């Protein structure tokens, strides 16, 4: 994991603290809507490309209202793309039967499904990123806990997130210490690696013990209490049902094709 990625994590936390209409919505409403959205995107046939286009509206509107920079979303997406690309790239090679045509150019099923996978990748990842950047991990976890996530798991995620940077800094200090002491290569022999990482592990364990003592001193009794989110408001319900209705409409009718047909008819 490179440094730039850590900076991006901090960036997402910062974005999560903004105050916009989307940020003010209840975390549960946003989480449910995004899940429904992803399920809807993935429920199309594997050759479907054009009909997916209307669904792009959701992440675009959410990130715009939530003031999430598109360049940021795009950069995070590029980092995650290789695995999907590696699997998708086989489709054009394997599935060569012509399925449709654009004017004189025949298009094979493989290229259709490849484009479909990459488009869905952009849609699903941007929706997930928009969700966390418009909600923040804390609200998301307490919201999910309200929806039935075991409390111990919710507090585990929060703990992990809280100490991410503390231990990330520690790893960097160790690496810098090595460099200062003349370890030239950036990569280590296994035995050196074992003791370096072992040291880091023991430091982490010692830190956990200190944290535990501090928590006990402050009255910790084994459960972490997250703030209960308030009642769902009308705007939350409107958000969920409004978007669900739009997804259903986009799923039922091929809005792109309808628009295209209409345009062609008008042009004539």
């Amino acid at each position: 994991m490179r440094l730039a990625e850590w900076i991006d994590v901090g960036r997402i936390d910062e974005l999560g603290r903004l105050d916009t209409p989307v940020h003010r919505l209840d975390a549960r409403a946003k989480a449910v809507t995004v899940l429904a959205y992803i399920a809807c995107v993935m429920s199309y046939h594997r050759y479907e490309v054009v009909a997916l286009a209307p669904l792009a509206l959701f992440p675009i509107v959410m990130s715009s209202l939530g003031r999430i920079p598109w360049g940021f979303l795009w950069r995070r997406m590029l980092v995650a793309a290789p695995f999907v690309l590696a699997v998708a790239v086989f489709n054009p090679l394997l599935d060569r039967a012509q399925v449709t045509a654009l004017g004189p150019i025949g298009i094979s099923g493989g290229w259709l499904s490849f484009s479909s996978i990459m488009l869905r990748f952009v849609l699903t990842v941007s929706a997930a990123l928009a969700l966390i950047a418009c909600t923040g991990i804390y609200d998301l976890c307490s919201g999910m806990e309200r929806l039935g996530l075991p409390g111990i798991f919710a507090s585990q995620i929060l703990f992990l997130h809280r100490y991410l940077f503390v231990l990330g800094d520690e790893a960097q200090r160790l690496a810098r210490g090595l460099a200062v002491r003349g370890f030239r290569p950036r990569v280590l022999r296994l035995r050196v690696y074992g003791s370096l990482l072992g040291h880091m592990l023991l430091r982490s364990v010692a830190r956990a013990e200190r944290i535990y003592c501090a928590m006990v001193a402050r009255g910790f009794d084994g459960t972490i209490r997250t703030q209960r989110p308030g009642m769902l408001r009308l705007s939350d319900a409107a958000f969920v049902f409004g978007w669900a209705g739009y997804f259903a409409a986009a799923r039922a009718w091929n809005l792109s094709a309808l628009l295209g047909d209409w345009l062609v008819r008008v042009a004539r």
Partner: protein
Amino acid sequence: MHMADALVSPAVGGTMWGVSAAAIAYSARKVKLQRKDSLVPLMGVLGAFVFAAQMINFTIPGTGSSGHIAGGLLLAILLGPEAAFLVIASVLVVQAFFFADGGLLALGCNMFNMGFFPAFIAYPFVYRVLVRKQYAAPRGWVAAVAAAVVALLLGAFSVVVETKASGISALPFGTFVMLMLPIHFAIGIVEGLATAAVVLFVARARPEVLAGGEPAAGRRRSLRPVLIGLLIAAGLVGGALSWFASTHPDGLEWSIAGLTGHTELAQQADTAHQKLAQVQGGSAIMPDYGFKRPGAAGQHGAARAAPAWPAVSPETSLSGLLGGLLTLVLAVLVGLALRTRRAPGAHTTVGR
């Protein structure tokens, strides 16, 4: 090994969500029953440790390249299966949200592939049985490598099954398995070596830290039933694989697709022979699909949906594309409009 949302169908994703949710609920209850309050911060910090550890690379012995630890097996050794599963699952949640590694729909799949196998299979049935508290070479190294390889192979196999069941990738089952398993075999060896190196250091410096993963009661597992179980499992998997590879190259895909209205058995057998030859030839990356009769491949990959995709006339697909592009442009314009309308207020409303 992170599966992305774009490769998972809602049915597969939903099923695996259910499976992983059950595993989380079970683990959470088990951890709670331990009544060890100090476990709460320890689990959290170790989760963050896994991220930090991935910043540090080591040279892979015998090669010029470098790698880093994934940490699943190490967590199981330090914490025991249930707590380790929760930590791995939380790491995957953070990776899915903050690093776009994996996805939300695929989260259940990823938790199962990368959490369940190391925590509930490889650690208790391979590592703990083999290592018997002797972490030094050769026993500690063999145990860690064997456990990591088992965990990664099972995980990789499960990735293939889930991807195939989702029906989005056109990769044939056999080819995908042949691609994934050797890679993850190698990754498993590296992961095992790194884990063993860390565990050995900890065992020498502070052995009591390693006691966290051991079961409370002094219940000893004997080696024999486990070895027999592994043998049977290997036989079953091998048998199933060879069946897939020989009689039905795409057996799984075929059965999932429902086999609706396809009775081209002669052609099926034909491709089976070619496929077998290619698998044996070891160059199975480019199977015979490209040389098949046009039309066959399309039905092959998506048997269920083939009837739903009659050759569309060029004109309608052109207008469809036009409409699709226009829809995208409209969506972006809506976004831009929302953006510019908000911009003036940006200074005043940015708060903490």
